[in-house]
């Protein structure tokens, strides 16, 4: 048998086109996407046909987890700083500049005010773990212990354009949501939105 020399195949695939596509996709994702905010508790919002979008700025989100822990978030760091200072004043707590920076870096407010200082001195990852066990203390009536009312009222004083959004897990018992709603009602905050995921409108409507 004669030895047939195998022809040396060139296995060079031109990746230029592929690269073009990926860069295009990447650009698309970078321009359209906004980051998922880190939340202390995982919340599955219920679905609804409502198509109203949440406002871009000046949103105060109140997060309620199935166990009834309440967290709050403000979207502007500047507001957060003012709110912390003002709430601290009302409770007679003075925060150091370092604690305030830590407060702004932490995404959510979710601590009883008495523990706030010690909490803010911890590094960020320890804060997350600790915050899961607490949440803002709430009460059905406006009292010294309803700190959610204090936070909401102060936030409204700092920035009166704030709109309020409630984000609660779908399995949260209604009583827990009612607590938050009646707190808001007591503060004369009657307009707020419930955050939901989009569900398609049923056929024929």
């Amino acid at each position: 048998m004669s030895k047939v020399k195998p022809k040396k195949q060139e296995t060079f695939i031109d990746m230029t086109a592929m690269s073009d596509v990926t860069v295009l996709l990447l650009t698309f994702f970078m321009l359209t996407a906004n980051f998922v905010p880190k939340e202390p508790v995982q919340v599955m919002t219920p679905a609804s046909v409502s198509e109203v979008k949440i406002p871009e700025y000046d949103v105060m989100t109140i997060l309620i987890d199935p166990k009834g822990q309440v967290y709050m978030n403000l979207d502007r760091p500047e507001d957060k700083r003012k709110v912390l200072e003002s709430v601290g004043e009302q409770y007679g707590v003075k925060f150091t500049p370092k604690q305030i920076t830590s407060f702004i870096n932490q995404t959510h407010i979710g601590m009883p005010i008495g523990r706030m200082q010690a909490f803010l001195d911890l590094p960020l990852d320890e804060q997350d773990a600790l915050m899961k066990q607490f949440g803002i203390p709430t009460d059905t009536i406006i009292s010294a212990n309803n700190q959610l009312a204090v936070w909401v009222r102060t936030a409204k004083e700092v920035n009166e354009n704030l709109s309020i959004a409630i984000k609660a897990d779908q399995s949260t018992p209604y009583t827990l949501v009612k607590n938050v709603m009646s707190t808001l009602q007591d503060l004369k905050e009657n307009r707020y939105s419930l955050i939901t995921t989009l569900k398609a409108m049923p056929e024929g409507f």
Partner: protein
Amino acid sequence: MAEVNTGGGGEQKKGQPQKLNLRVDFTPMVDMNMLLITFFMFCTTLSKPQTMDIVMPTKDTDLTEEDKNQVKASKAITLILGEDDKIYYYMGEPNYSDYTSLKETTYGAGGLRDILLERNRDAVAEMRTLKIDRAKKKITEEQFKEKSSEIRNKKDGQVVVIKPTNSASYKNLVDALDEMQICSIGKYAIVEMADGDNYLVQNYQSKGALSAETGGR
């Protein structure tokens, strides 16, 4: 990996221009891009969350009964959101002596939606034509909004009172509010359970044992 091949190599004829084969391997570039795309896909949300706007009544206690909007009994329907995804409802005034006046239904199509559609047929039909008009671009978005709120808030439209019990979940409430949207009901309110409503539910669950005891009073 990335190779810039200069063709031939070795002995070159003097005087002839060097033939350059410039070919850059893009594979690592593609690898990196894919990695970045995956990262962006996992860490971002594409759409902003939807919201449902609600307006609650003020808790002013100095409102007298007359100041509050009196609802025509014939146009009112009261939903009681119960435990285990159950809904009880009654039309108009509650009838405490007859436990069958309270009925039970389910969420979504077939249950609650059918009842509301039946009661609110005119408004739903109007909304439907309005939406078709919008789809055909006969009316502008603003006109649509104006007209739809007109339909929803008609003078003697259907009124729904939603009373969530303590054993209802948040999902139940949102589902009920959602049906209001689907069935084009503009007038609805979330109201606290009263003692009478608790009695109605208990009476229904015990199949009239409570009202039999008290002799219908």
